[in-house]
């Protein structure tokens, strides 16, 4: 058994960190888009808007029911066959699109659960003082639902960061893609993938720490 090549591992760190902005950028863009889309889906589901509600249900069912990798291939390799304007789609855009659609399906369900979990009497109280449905949603329900949904949404964000590694299957050289290339030229597969695993791990740990701080802040109103 040979020893780990520590020098190689240390040298790899700065090289791989250079790809971190792309990885985090894709995750951040995906998260922002997914938040907007999932809030819209959740509100459609909760208010049972005709037609849109059924469409949302099919959307959620499809994107939860199929693997993310399959969805990415479908967008990147499949769709341009029919939609010619997608021929020029690059791997980064396709990844962000895929992450958005895939995760918004999951997030919509947890946001919906958070909304329906808010005591119905608060909705009535808001209505009784003459607030419109939109005002009630924006000022009373969503702020409270946000607090309930935050831990779950943070978990999805963490999951999304890890899922950006699938972009390498679309030819994107992000953190995972770069590691793969380095490993292929050095043949030090174990070292290379161990380094990238530790990088992902540290990012996730840092985010979990932020998550705890955030939850504490959001729970301020509920301390007795």
């Amino acid at each position: 058994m040979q020893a780990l090549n520590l020098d190689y591992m240390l040298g790899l760190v700065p090289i791989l960190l250079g790809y971190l902005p792309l990885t985090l950028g894709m995750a951040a863009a995906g998260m922002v888009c997914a938040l907007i889309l999932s809030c819209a889906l959740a509100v459609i589901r909760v208010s049972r808007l005709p037609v849109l509600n059924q469409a949302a249900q099919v959307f959620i069912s499809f994107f939860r029911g199929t693997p993310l990798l399959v969805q990415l291939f479908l967008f990147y390799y499949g769709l341009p066959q029919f939609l010619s304007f997608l021929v020029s789609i690059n791997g980064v855009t396709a990844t962000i699109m895929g992450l958005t659609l895939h995760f918004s399906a999951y997030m919509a369900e947890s946001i919906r659960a958070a909304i329906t979990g808010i005591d119905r009497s608060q909705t009535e109280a808001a209505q009784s003082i003459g607030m419109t449905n939109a005002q009630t949603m924006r000022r009373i329900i969503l702020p409270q639902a946000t607090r309930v949904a935050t831990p779950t949404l943070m978990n999805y964000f963490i999951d999304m960061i890890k899922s950006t590694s699938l972009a390498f299957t679309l030819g994107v050289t992000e953190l995972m893609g770069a590691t793969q290339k380095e490993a292929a030229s050095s043949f030090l597969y174990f070292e290379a993938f161990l380094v990238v695993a530790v990088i992902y791990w540290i990012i996730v740990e840092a985010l979990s720490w932020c998550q705890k701080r955030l939850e504490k802040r959001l729970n301020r109103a509920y301390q007795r």
Partner: protein
Amino acid sequence: MIALKGITKRFGEHTVLDGIDLSLERGEIIVVIGPSGTGKSTLLRCINFLERPDAGQLKVGDLSVDAARAKNEDILGLRRRTAFVFQNYALFAHKTALENIAERMIVVEGLSKNDAHARAREILERIGLADKADAYPAALSGGQQQRIGIGRAMAAKAEVILFDEPTSALDPEWVEEVLALMKQLAAEQQTMIVVTHEMQFAREVADRVVFMDGGRIVEQAPPSELFTNPKDERTRSFLRKVLAGNAPAAT
């Protein structure tokens, strides 16, 4: 000033309100009593369309609404002319006492946050909770929460405040402070309709007591008359039951 005519509400086959007629003058205080499940709360909830009446006319202040044809703007109009106090307080859990009271002024009246908070502070003074301005509902006792609930209703400067069993969910130790605040409002000539089981409150404060049974108003009279000389047998039987429970133990 407030007039209900033929208010009817059905839940499926069951008729909860069977053509209610009721009118109030400005400053009048009406207490609605009656057995559980006779539609007292539903009547209140129909006045601001938390329940949509199936038929009937409502007039609150300068607004007349035909229930069967009510549009969104009618419903908002009714809600902006009335205020509601809930049995379970229904405070906004993510807002402080001050913010709960100021919310309507900011969102509905369009006041600036500063002006709204200043006015909300005045209301907190009046309800004796100035020191709780920054407390969240979870940190308040039931009695304090309900007083904030009443403060929120006061902030509406509504034509009428509708009280839906405001003390029923309270531990006995908090009932008095809430009733005291309601008496204070009554003394200020606030028009109100109160659904309650507090007979003593009805006796002391009501201008008129309305007895409901089976979705109808059976009889209505000033408390001195209704409590001492009820005309209908159903009223007599109801009063016998509740007053027997309230009477001091015989020695």
